[in-house]
């Protein structure tokens, strides 16, 4: 290829670093002789080649990365879980997979990647349309799934439904995301918790109560039993800690649909986004310290990404 003004940059670095072949170097210099402006730029770099020097900055949290030493994410998770049980969670949306967890003794738990889904969202006060739309938006994929594992996978943007979850995922799931928040379906427990978690904004921030009351079902914080050998000893099952308080979002009214919302699709979209915001504040934010959690929103979709898994809460398509 003949060197020209259009392509000389492909060889410029090699020329400057002295790695061009003799013939190509001669050709390049002939080209420079005929192109004074370009030659001046090359000469300037020959005079001084700006190169960066690495800083001594170090990654401050290597312990969180190690698998065989230091503080594991599981230990941090367990520590946080204790705090959450005392302080925490839920506004009518809970992380799913309850029945899989309840099937203790089976190996399902180890197959749970870091996925969250939503269920049991109730909106009272004449919001039937919104309730139906919201329920469809956040629970249908779970309800339609054949089992809880499939329901979880249905929410994953990275694992196909028919894909075997590799063993390595089991280890990662056990260490990084061995906790889920789930509804407690025992009738007596549910009744008590439902009663305990009816809230209005007036109870939390002093502002007038909105027209529509939000009712959520509290869940319990569970740790999945250590079904994988790599988890090791020292595991503490936290399945008896009751939810004693709720993290109340700043604006509970955010999850109610505005009156002008005409179509179900619009309602679902807006509710999904607003619910995501509420969830982010009330449930997901505490998990930030465990693994990267981010709320995302594009023109088409919005949702939550936790530990690289994507939960789409709203999808215009």
């Amino acid at each position: 290829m003949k060197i020209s003004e259009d392509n000389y940059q492909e060889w410029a670095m090699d020329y400057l670093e002295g790695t061009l072949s003799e013939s190509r170097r001669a050709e390049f210099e002939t080209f420079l002789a005929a192109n004074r402006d370009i030659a001046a730029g090359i000469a300037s770099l020959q005079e001084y080649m700006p190169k960066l020097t690495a800083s001594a900055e170090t990654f401050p949290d290597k312990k969180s990365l190690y698998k065989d030493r230091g503080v594991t994410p599981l230990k941090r998770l367990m520590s946080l879980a204790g705090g959450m049980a005392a302080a925490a969670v839920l506004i009518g949306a809970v992380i799913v997979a309850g029945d899989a967890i309840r099937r203790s003794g089976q190996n399902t738990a180890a197959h749970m990647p870091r996925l969250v889904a939503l269920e049991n969202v109730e909106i009272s006060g004449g919001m039937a349309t919104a309730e139906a739309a919201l329920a469809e938006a956040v629970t249908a994929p779970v309800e339609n799934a054949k089992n809880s594992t499939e329901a979880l996978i249905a929410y994953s943007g990275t694992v196909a439904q028919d894909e075997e979850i590799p063993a390595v995922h089991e280890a990662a799931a056990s260490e990084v995301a061995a906790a889920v928040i789930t509804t407690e379906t025992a009738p007596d427990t549910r009744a008590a918790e439902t009663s305990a978690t009816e809230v209005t904004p007036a109870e939390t921030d002093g502002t007038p109560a909105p027209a529509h009351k939000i009712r959520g079902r509290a869940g319990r914080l569970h740790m999945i039993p250590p079904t994988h050998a790599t988890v090791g000893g020292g595991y503490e099952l936290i399945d008896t800690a009751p939810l004693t308080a709720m993290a109340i979002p700043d604006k509970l009214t955010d999850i109610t649909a505005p009156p002008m919302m005409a179509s179900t699709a619009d309602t679902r979209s807006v509710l999904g986004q607003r619910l995501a915001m509420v969830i982010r504040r009330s449930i997901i934010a505490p998990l930030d310290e465990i693994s990267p959690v981010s709320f995302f929103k594009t023109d088409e979709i919005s949702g939550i990404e936790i530990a690289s898994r994507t939960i789409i809460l709203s999808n215009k398509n």
Partner: protein
Amino acid sequence: MTVAEYDKCVDTYADSLYRFALKSLRNRDEANDIVQESFMRLWERCQEVISGKEKSYLFTIGHHLIIDRVRMDKRFVHSETMQAGAGNSNAQEYSNIGELLESYLDELPGIQRSLVMLRDYEGYSYQEIAEITHLSESQVKVYIFRARTALRKSIGNIENIL
């Protein structure tokens, strides 16, 4: 890859990957996220990563996560043009040429900045950078040449700062 080999990767590459992310994003929390995510994916794929390619794998993941993050934040600079002398760069504000170059680095288009950092900070060959960034080797050389030319123009008369 064994657990011990993975932990060795943490010891060997976490700092350099963090520096790369930090220089790219200028945000410690985001850089932290990039490192965590990259190593998590390495662990998930530890049985597939070829021995000796761990660093390349990590930086490939990190590079693309950074691009995604920048695009999401609409901070990606599409323009290839660099306004010489623009921004906050002022030779008199910096105590050495290294700091001055760092300041000018911010004014480079994102892809040029990433490539120069991979080359200078990590010492990758053009071919390795091409693999990491999914560009051709020629494209890498062109971008790096343009970046160095832009940095050189920004510095101006070398006698003024040496």
